[in-house]
């Protein structure tokens, strides 16, 4: 796959190209000093660009086509992943994957949205947009985990639940609603991590948990910036403003007390060093599981209810 370079990353790549050229000819010329200067410049430029991202630029990073997806993380972080299929009612939705896995010594159920990487796999995965049977499969697997006392990890990465004709016929709304209710009372620890896009009800449908984490370059909101722009500004042109207005980045959500923790990514995004990104996330997940496993199941459910009960802002 050709490298995808986002607009705001171009100055970095241009400088890196120049650096590569200089290195090629450096054998014949005494330019080690100049090379060092350019190298430093690249580093400084990366720091300044990636540390000062706008909200819209974060959205772009969250959608980066080279970013690791749920199954990539599962393969990098866990052993013995045993994928389990189907909702026992209608079929097997490919936009949500799940199964048992071992993460260090923890035997867990791990479930997440799954996007594809090219046209063919994207069609297969429906671009990570689940149908109702996806949510029902997720719930079936979560109840299986509960029955055998296994903690649950869910990974969120979706542009939304699929807005299709058949999705409506099969009860997209009911499937999501049911998950919200049932997840809130599962008697096992649930750790939720947003690894890419967290768009609205389609994300929340597997997003109720005891700890909610967000990777550094992800977004999570009630609507995508594009749709928000089209509804409120009546034009697709205001996505940058919409992203700003929605306050949808990880630091924003930490401030709004919707998430508990931000998981750092390698500089420039998880795709710059997938192994490193996965190892950081793995370490964090293990920490969280260790904490949650100490809490009695009934207490866990009470705390979960209280956690979501506090969310919001009102005047009275």
């Amino acid at each position, binding site marked *: 796959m050709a490298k995808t370079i986002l607009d705001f990353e171009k100055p970095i790549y241009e400088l890196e190209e120049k650096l590569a050229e200089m290195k090629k000819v450096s054998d014949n010329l005494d330019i080690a000093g100049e090379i060092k200067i350019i190298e430093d410049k690249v580093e400084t430029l990366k720091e300044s660009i990636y540390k000062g991202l706008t909200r819209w630029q974060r959205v772009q990073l969250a959608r980066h086509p080279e970013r690791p997806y749920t199954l990539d993380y599962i393969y990098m972080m866990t052993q013995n992943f045993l994928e389990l299929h189907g909702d026992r009612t209608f079929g097997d939705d490919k936009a949500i994957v799940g199964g048992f896995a071992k993460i260090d010594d923890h035997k867990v159920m791990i479930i997440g949205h799954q996007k594809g990487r090219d046209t063919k796999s994207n069609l297969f995965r429906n671009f990570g947009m689940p149908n109702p049977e996806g949510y029902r499969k997720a719930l079936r697997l979560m109840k299986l985990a509960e029955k055998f006392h296994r903690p649950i990890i869910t990974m969120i990465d979706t542009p939304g*639940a*699929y*807005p*299709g*004709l058949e*999705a*409506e*016929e*099969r*009860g*997209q*709304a*009911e499937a*999501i*609603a*049911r998950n*919200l*209710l*049932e997840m*809130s*009372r599962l008697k096992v620890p649930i750790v939720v991590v947003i690894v890419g896009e967290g768009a*609205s*009800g389609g994300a*929340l*449908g597997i*997003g*109720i948990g005891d700890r909610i984490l967000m990777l550094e370059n992800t977004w*999570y*909101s*009630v*609507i995508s910036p594009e749709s*928000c722009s089209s*509804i*409120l*500004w009546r034009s697709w042109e*205001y996505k940058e*403003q*919409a992203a700003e*207005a*929605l*306050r*949808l980045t990880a630091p*924003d*959500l930490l401030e*709004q007390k*919707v998430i508990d923790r931000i998981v750092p990514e390698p500089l420039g995004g998880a795709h710059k060093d997938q192994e490193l990104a996965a190892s950081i996330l793995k370490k964090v997940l293990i920490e969280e599981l260790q904490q949650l496993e100490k809490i009695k199941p009934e207490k866990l459910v009470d705390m*979960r*209810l209280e956690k*979501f*009960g506090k*969310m*919001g*802002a*009102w*005047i*009275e």
Partner: protein
Amino acid sequence: MSWFKRSKKNFSDDTQKMDLPDGMWMKCPECDEIIHKKQLESNLWTCVKCSYHFRIGSEEYIKVILDEGSFKEINKKMRSADPLEFSDTKKYSLRVNDAIKKTELYDAIRTGTGTINGKEISFGCMDFKFIGGSMGSVVGEKIARLIDKSIKSKIPLVLISSSGGARMMEGVLSLMQMAKTSARLAKLADLGIPYISILTDPTTGGITASYAMLGDVNIAEPKALIGFAGPRVIKQTIGKDLPKGFQTAEFLQEHGFIDRVVSRKELKNTLFTLLEFLN
């Protein structure tokens, strides 16, 4: 009167209510029947000729469902805090203020207690006219507290939905109200207290995908639009016209998501009968 010539499609909620000169007459958007307001009210805001259900709000539903004078409102003055200081083409805080002025409501739901033929319930009813009946923190919190009231007083819960979905001007916090209300309903269910959900025109988005679909019994008014995604979005996605009757109350009953389509005139009796079975 040029508005007479408008096609049915052009009748928004507002034009539906557009009065004839003396202010006492309304026109049925379905069959064009001209109906006196008093007559409409005594017919529970359904057309005398074709039984079209006019879109109504909490004030009217309180009359339709609860015993006269029994409604005791709680948390009446709770209002939005504009947590994001959101602004698009207009400041959200101004939108809220304007809506309060225009509707004389504080947000898109009213909650409280009341009786149905003497039987006490906790009762919530959304108002579509308040920013499209959208759910932000206030709607979520008021529902959560209403459920607490049901739990504390051990009385059944009845919620009437009418909403375009979550209130995007409150960002992710509005999304979290879906989680908050659904989690609280889990607690209600664990305690064996009945919850009846009534879906009216329209109920879409985050409301359908949370408490509106979670009733022990889900009831819908005839022909109400009910769905997750809006018809326009679905049409865009599939690139085809939608089949007739798609996403209506009857369609949802046919596909197994609504227990019963009940006309407004039967609503109170149906609720009473149901509550006798559930309680």
